[in-house]
Structures are given as structure tokens and as C-alpha cells.
């Protein structure tokens, strides 16, 4: 007890004014540093969501079934790809962004020059259409898979009547008094089709001509880069 009493009557260590000033300065510096680090961290976490959003949306529209270059969903038409220009791209993304569209590394079109920026890639098929022609021997013919836009031209000789054309047993053209001329035929897309001609009288070679579009698809990567 006596020692405790002694402590309070002598010199007491006291907080001095300079120490308070130094503490205040130190604390302010530390606070400022902390705020700076926190701000940087949040800015980094928020890394250009606008770019990513625009790139993803543009890429999604380009591969959609009704996109400006599309034949079907994720299938691009090579002619439409060649015709796709900067104006169409600007129409798609809106002004204010630098956008480039590349197909397997080759630039299709670009608005501005997106140096860095965010890239979204989509997988597509590019379809080139070549025309095919068939002249069947006899009264039936098998079309290649995926033939589309089929037109059948019937020029039977005198005395022969082509009454019915069937595709895989389904009647696609029919006329009792005879078919003559050029007809469009709609076919299912997922199967090979056999066309069969029902005639009265002989059908010599060359009196039926079939024209069709034979699409050829090649795999490609469509990359959309956006720099805001």
C-alpha cells in the first residue's frame, strides 16, 4: 500500500503535446494510404464490365439465327460475311465503341481500332453454297445430304406423262394430265432424299433435270473485340 501511495505524489509521466501531434500526423498518413489501397482494389475488381457486356452481346447477335450474317443459328453464310461492313457493325453495337470482328484470325470488319480490349469468341460454321446438277437415269434419283433449294425441271418427250413426283414416298408434285416445266420442291433438311418419278410411258435420260444448292460448312471461330 505504501508503494502505491508513493507513485502518485512524485513525478508523473504525462502525455506531451508534441507526442499528440506526431500521433495525429502518423494516423492521418496511414488512413490516407489505406483509402488509396482500398480504392485501387475496388477499381481493379470492377474491370471494364462495359467492354465485356458489349462484346458478349454483339457476339451473341452475330451468331443468332436472325443475325446479319446468319444462315441458321451459329451458321454463317459466306456471301453475307463478305457483305458485312463497318456500317452494319456500327448498327449492331451502337456508336462509341471500337469493335472488330474476326473470323479465324482474319478481320471481317472493324469500326475503329480496338488495340487492347475484351474479346469474346464464338464457334460457328461458315457455309459456302455451290450449285449441283443431277440428271437421273431411270425413274428415281437420290439427292445428297443437305441439298436445299431443289428445283426439278421436267421435259418429258411426246407420249409420256409424268403424273407424280415423290420424295421418300411423300407426294411433292402431282398432276393427272402431266407435269411439265420447272418446279420448286421442299425437302426435309435432316435426311437424304430419294426422288421418284411416276410416269405413263418411257422416261428417257435427260428429260428430268434437278438443280440444287449443296452447302459446304467449314468450322471457324468468330472473335468480337470491343474497346470502349
Amino acid at each position, binding site marked *: 500500500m505504501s508503494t502505491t501511495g*508513493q*507513485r502518485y505524489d*512524485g*513525478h508523473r*509521466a504525462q*502525455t*506531451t503535446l508534441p*507526442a*499528440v501531434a*506526431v*500521433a*495525429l500526423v*502518423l*494516423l492521418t498518413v*496511414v*488512413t490516407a*494510404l*489505406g483509402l488509396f*489501397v*482500398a480504392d485501387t*482494389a*475496388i477499381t*481493379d*475488381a*470492377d*474491370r471494364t*464490365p462495359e467492354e*465485356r457486356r458489349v462484346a*458478349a452481346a454483339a*457476339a*451473341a447477335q452475330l*451468331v443468332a439465327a436472325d443475325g446479319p450474317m446468319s444462315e*441458321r*443459328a*451459329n*451458321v454463317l453464310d459466306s456471301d453475307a460475311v463478305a457483305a458485312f461492313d463497318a456500317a452494319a457493325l456500327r448498327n449492331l453495337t451502337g456508336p462509341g465503341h471500337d469493335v472488330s470482328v474476326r473470323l479465324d484470325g482474319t478481320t471481317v470488319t472493324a469500326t475503329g481500332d480496338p488495340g487492347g480490349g475484351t474479346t*469474346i*469468341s*464464338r*464457334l*460457328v*460454321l461458315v457455309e459456302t453454297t455451290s450449285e449441283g446438277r443431277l440428271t437421273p437415269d431411270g425413274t428415281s434419283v437420290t439427292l445428297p*445430304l*443437305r441439298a436445299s433449294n431443289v428445283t426439278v425441271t421436267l421435259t418429258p418427250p411426246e407420249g409420256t406423262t409424268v403424273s407424280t413426283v415423290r420424295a421418300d414416298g411423300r407426294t411433292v408434285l402431282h398432276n393427272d394430265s402431266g407435269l411439265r416445266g420447272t418446279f420448286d420442291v421442299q425437302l*426435309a*433438311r*435432316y*435426311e437424304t432424299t430419294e426422288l421418284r418419278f411416276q410416269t405413263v410411258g418411257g422416261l428417257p435420260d435427260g428429260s428430268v433435270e434437278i438443280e440444287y444448292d449443296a452447302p459446304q460448312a467449314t*468450322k471457324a*471461330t468468330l472473335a468480337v473485340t470491343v474497346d470502349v
Partner: protein
Amino acid sequence: MSRAQLPLSLVEVALGAVLILGITFGFALGTPAPDTQAPQLSAYAEDTATLLANEPASHNGTTRTREIVASEAAFDRERDSLERRVDRILPANVLFTIETPHGSVGTPVPRQVPTGTAAVATGAGTVRIEVWYA
């Protein structure tokens, strides 16, 4: 008796600095990095699903996805050609697995990697595609 003491303000400033630095480290280490892989992987998975769902099957006159879920035998017959096809569709650095009611094709999905998935419903069941970066 004269005793040297540490000024109380300096003790306080030390404690305050530790507190503020603690919060700062929370920001620096605790902020999640933005997930930049997932949207791209989802896009890959969806594209693969769309392409497969629109491709003619090699045998039964429907689509590729419908064909592989048609029956156990059809799945066994088509699994190799399906794997080759999807391997060609996807970029080289992307691995995949395709799940059907009859089994799965591709590489087993590793744990704790970001993946993208897409599903195609067909008349005979659902085909599920999952892709991730190798």
C-alpha cells in the same frame, strides 16, 4: 521516483495504424477477381450444343443430339464419332464432357475449375455439355 514512460498517444497511434492496415488488407486480399472465364466458357458450351442440335444424324434421320439419346446401342455406336466431332468444334485448349442418359463422352470434369454448361432437350432425354479450360 522518476520513471520513463511511453507517451500514451504513441501507443494509441500504433493501435490505430494496426487497425486501419488490417481493414486495408481486407480490401486488398478479400476483393474477388472478376470472373472472366465463365462467360466465354458458357458461350463455347452453347455454341457446341447449337451446332450438334442442328446437325443431321448419320443414321436415323433426326439430329445428332437426338440420335445419341435414342438408345443405348445408338449411343455406343455414335460415341466415338461424337467425341471426334466435338473435339473438332471446340478450340484445342478447351476440354469437354457430354452427358446423356446412356453415359458420357469426353474427359471427366475436374473439381474446382470454372466450367460452362449447356443443355439440349430432345424427345428421348437431355444432352448436357460441360466445357472448361485445359
